[in-house]
């Protein structure tokens, strides 16, 4: 006899949505089988609850009450509008837009996954079937439901000067699922930016974006994500990252707003002497909830990982940082450091920080730190004694707090755009 867990209304609605849409979803027989297997596994696991360690503070089973209808295309969107005011035309010119779950504005060098699935290259097919993705039910759900996504294949040695921008938009009251599959060849250099905006005034939205990125030996990759949520919006992001040897990978994630956002990031060090240099800035308002949960897996020796997470919280906002760092028995000379800092603008805000160092090697340097503090009244006094009004002084101090994370972004245009978005959110 099999014991069936009682499923929630939302879980049942997801299963029904899959059945109703399965025929419309792109892909041949192999992909259809993959989807069917994924939804089967999802059915037995259900939405992640707080019992799943990676969702300890973001219980989707309890939080997701309603399931919006799945959108699989038919939307419109242009890059400039979707990017918002802070990204200049040079970004719009390099942007691929996904509206309501389907690519609408293309860009050279980016293929739409839905268009290639019938005859997908081996590396894409292999990525889609990555067994690592069957561990968590949020990822299973993406596999079952994704309707499109970007396929980016950067040749070995290529230096892509301009950032490649992927923007997702959706109409209200829709659910979307995108899968991006990226391969960066050995020695290549590229910057990839993902933008997911549910701007002020938008209604309920549910979106999932799963990005798989495999980075070849000696490549340098900057990978940025901006998630703007709004009351009633839910965004589930996950990055599955595989690093070769001598790689420099610099992810930066910015999460803003009043909705519910979760940024999962799993990085696997497969080759020696690679660096993972992560930065994150989140500004969460009202009853918003932003979760960043990382799993950094040092499988090989001589790699470096850095994480700097900063969050500003007001109202009853809640931020979560889970930084799990695994150092495998042979991963000697691992150098791992982690810092998570919250600036609490309200007594009702909450910051949950959970560093988790699992160290099985003995010759390593690993450390972590975590702070949650209010604005320092002495610094406010120092500023006001110089004539700066209190509100401006507080703004300056908050901006500088979050700016320390944003400063990790070296590309000037991107750093300024992110700074502008952060300022808007702070003064909202």
């Amino acid at each position, binding site marked *: 006899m099999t014991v069936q867990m009682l499923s929630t209304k939302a879980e049942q609605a997801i299963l029904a949505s899959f059945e109703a849409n399965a025929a419309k979803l792109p892909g041949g027989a192999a992909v259809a089988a993959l989807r069917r297997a994924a939804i089967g596994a999802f059915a037995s696991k259900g939405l992640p609850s707080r019992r799943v360690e990676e969702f300890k503070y973001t219980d989707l089973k309890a939080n997701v009450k309603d399931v919006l209808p799945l959108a699989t295309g038919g939307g419109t969107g242009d890059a400039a509008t979707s990017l918002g005011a802070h990204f200049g035309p040079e970004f719009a010119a390099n942007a691929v837009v996904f509206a309501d779950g389907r690519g609408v504005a293309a860009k050279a060098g980016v293929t739409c996954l839905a268009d290639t699935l019938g005859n997908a290259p081996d590396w894409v097919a292999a990525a889609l079937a990555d067994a690592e993705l069957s561990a968590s039910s949020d990822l299973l759900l993406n596999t079952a439901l994704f309707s499109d996504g970007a396929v980016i294949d950067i040749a070995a040695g290529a230096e892509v000067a301009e950032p490649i921008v992927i923007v997702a938009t959706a109409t209200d009251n829709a659910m979307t699922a995108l899968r991006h599959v990226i391969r960066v060849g050995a020695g290549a250099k590229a910057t990839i930016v993902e933008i997911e905006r549910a701007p002020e005034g938008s209604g309920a939205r549910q979106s999932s974006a799963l990005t798989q990125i495999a980075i070849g030996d000696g490549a340098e990759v900057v990978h940025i994500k901006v998630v703007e949520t709004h009351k009633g919006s839910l965004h589930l992001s996950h990055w599955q990252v595989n690093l070769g040897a001598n790689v420099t990978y610099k992810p930066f994630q910015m999460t803003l707003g009043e909705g519910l956002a979760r940024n999962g990031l799993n990085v696997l060090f497969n080759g020696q002497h690679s660096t993972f240099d992560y930065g994150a800035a989140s500004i969460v308002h009202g009853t918003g909830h932003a979760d960043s949960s990382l799993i950094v897996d040092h499988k090989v020796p001589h790699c470096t990982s850095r994480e700097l997470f900063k969050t500003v919280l007001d109202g009853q906002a809640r931020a979560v940082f889970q930084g799990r760092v695994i150092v495998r028995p042979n991963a000697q000379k691992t150098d791992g450091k982690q810092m998570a800092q919250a600036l609490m603008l309200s007594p009702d805000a909450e910051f949950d920080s959970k560093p988790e160092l699992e160290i099985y090697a003995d010759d390593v340097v690993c450390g972590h730190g975590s702070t949650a503090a209010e604005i320092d009244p002495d610094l406010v*006094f120092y500023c*006001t*004694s*110089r*004539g700066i*009004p209190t509100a401006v002084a507080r703004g*300056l*101090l908050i901006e*500088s707090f979050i700016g*320390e994370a944003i400063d990790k972004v070296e590309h000037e245009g991107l750093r300024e755009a992110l700074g502008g978005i952060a300022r808007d959110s702070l003064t909202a």
Partner: protein
Amino acid sequence: MLEIKNLHVKLADEDKVILKGLTLTVPKGEVHAIMGPNGSGKSTLAYVLAGREGYEVTDGDILWNGESIIEMEPDERAAKGVFLAFQYPMEIPGVAGLTFLRTATNAVRKKRELTEMTTPEFMKFVKEKAAKLNIDFEMLKRPVNVGFSGGEKKRSEILQMAMLEPTLCVLDETDSGLDIDALKVVSDGVNALRGPDRAMLVITHYQRLLNHIVPDKVHVLADGRIQKTGGKELALELEKSGYAEFTGKAA
């Protein structure tokens, strides 16, 4: 004119009384020095003048140009010309020195109904003032005071003072931590601001500073009150005799 009348100050959160009826007048155009033993309340007086939270004025008043300032916010006082050079200047990580100076300069100018400075105007102004104080301009691109040596921090305070053009300058041990050359540079900077419209209150432990910034009067603060007032020669006397006479009186 600065008029401090019978000022009584205690800590807001504790019963500790620090100033116990301090009376002091500094006319415009004059420089007065305050000397006194450690813990006698000199910095407290400076903070209360600038409007720091945590202190409660239980009696007395502070008038600047005839107007009581004790209810004013620190930024309002700054706009009225009050400036405190801190004994321990604070570090502000993440805020570039130039951003800070520009925000402060323009905030004060705006409240004084002067036009705000444009970027080129501001840059010219700050470069000129920094050069006079031997401050490396590159340092101002770094976060405010972060990683500065003790002496660099003190010079940075005087640069802020020069930029904000205050009319009541309170210097709390600006000389401590300065090397001999820097003491000269900083004193020149302070002296450059002396004028018929400015009053200055210089807190120091060392007579040496007063050779450079020659005071009109020297006051001895002990046990929360001005115990003695004299000319610049009082500083020399104190150098010899110490504060025993005053602390004895206090005990």
